[in-house]
């Protein structure tokens, strides 16, 4: 849990700057999420992977943008690598996820993708 962080190659200030651009919406979404998991059935990947809870939109949202916000951008390459798998392999940004409270989940995941891209972390389609 207390893994030594190797923050080389990750610019936390840049991450914080990108988070600040959408600060109001992001903080509101994180706070309003009731952790109810009613968004799960609206994600076709969740339904297609045997209802594996790791594909739930709320899980993806809380473990990408939520983690970045809580750690105030102090993540290392390993964290970003895990986030890459979460945000690119478990989501195609089809924008059909439904939140009963009205949180714009695709926008939050797009923000996480944007932050990963800014640190040079992106999907490698030629290395499957």
């Amino acid at each position, binding site marked *: 849990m207390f893994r030594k962080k190797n923050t080389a190659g990750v610019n936390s200030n840049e991450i914080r700057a990108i988070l600040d651009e959408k600060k*109001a919406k992001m903080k509101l979404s994180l706070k309003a999420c*009731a952790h*109810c998991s009613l968004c799960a059935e609206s994600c076709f990947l969740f339904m297609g992977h045997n209802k594996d809870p790791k594909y*739930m939109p709320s899980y993806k949202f*809380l473990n990408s943008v939520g983690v970045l916000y809580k750690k105030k951008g102090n993540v290392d390459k390993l964290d970003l690598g895990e986030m890459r798998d979460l945000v690119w392999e478990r989501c195609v940004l089809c924008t059909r996820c*439904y939140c009963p*409270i*009205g949180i714009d989940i695709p926008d939050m995941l797009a923000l996480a993708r944007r932050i990963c891209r800014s640190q040079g972390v992106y999907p490698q389609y030629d290395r499957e």
Partner: protein
Amino acid sequence: MALSHIFSWTFMYDFIRGPMVWISFIIFFCGVVFQVLRFMSLLKEQPVKKFEPGPGNIIHSQTVSHLKGDRVKTRWFKKGPDKKDWMVWLKLSIAGVNPFMTIVTTIFHVLLIGVPVFVLGHNILLDNAFGISMVSLPENVSDFLTGVVIFCTLIFLFRRLFLERVKMITSYEDYLFLSLAAAPFVTGYLAYHQVFSNYKLLISLHILSGELLLMAVPFTKFIHMIYMIIVRFNVAGEYSFGNARKNW
């Protein structure tokens, strides 16, 4: 016994029953208004571009097929009100996908607001204070409904503890807020039935937990009670009602 000393201390008791009620309601209303304004300021009206068919603007439609005497059949959501259509629509909505949770949540939320507003004890207090009151439920009915609310919170707790998909995204705050929501009902039930000998203690806890709940609404995830309605009628999306035209 030390605890009851603190609570039978006149000041504490009078404070919770008196000024604190006002403070919590003021914080509740002002907080909710503030959060709603903050939310609405994030939304922007997007003009809907009406489509005018004309030169260069063609709506693609398939040429009519001449096969099998294809009569033009309208889609199920274009027909008029019909029993079968409502059934299909219902099945496709969250009620069809997760009927158990839909029913439990609906009952819980209706009673969450309904029971405190219509219970006899509260209405007597209102009558004493302002001379007005709502219609009151008979006491055995409100008693039963309180039991229902507590049962619903137990279902939520069960779900949070044992369902993998909810446990994964649960944090300590969820347990805290669930107990906060249940506390007024539990303490009210216990106080009414005079389960413990110290009635004053329980009723003070009941009032205090109610006040804490009200004060917590604008600043925690409880604000979903207001946001859900605003979002449905304002933000444009697949599931919006009415003339939803705004966008983040």
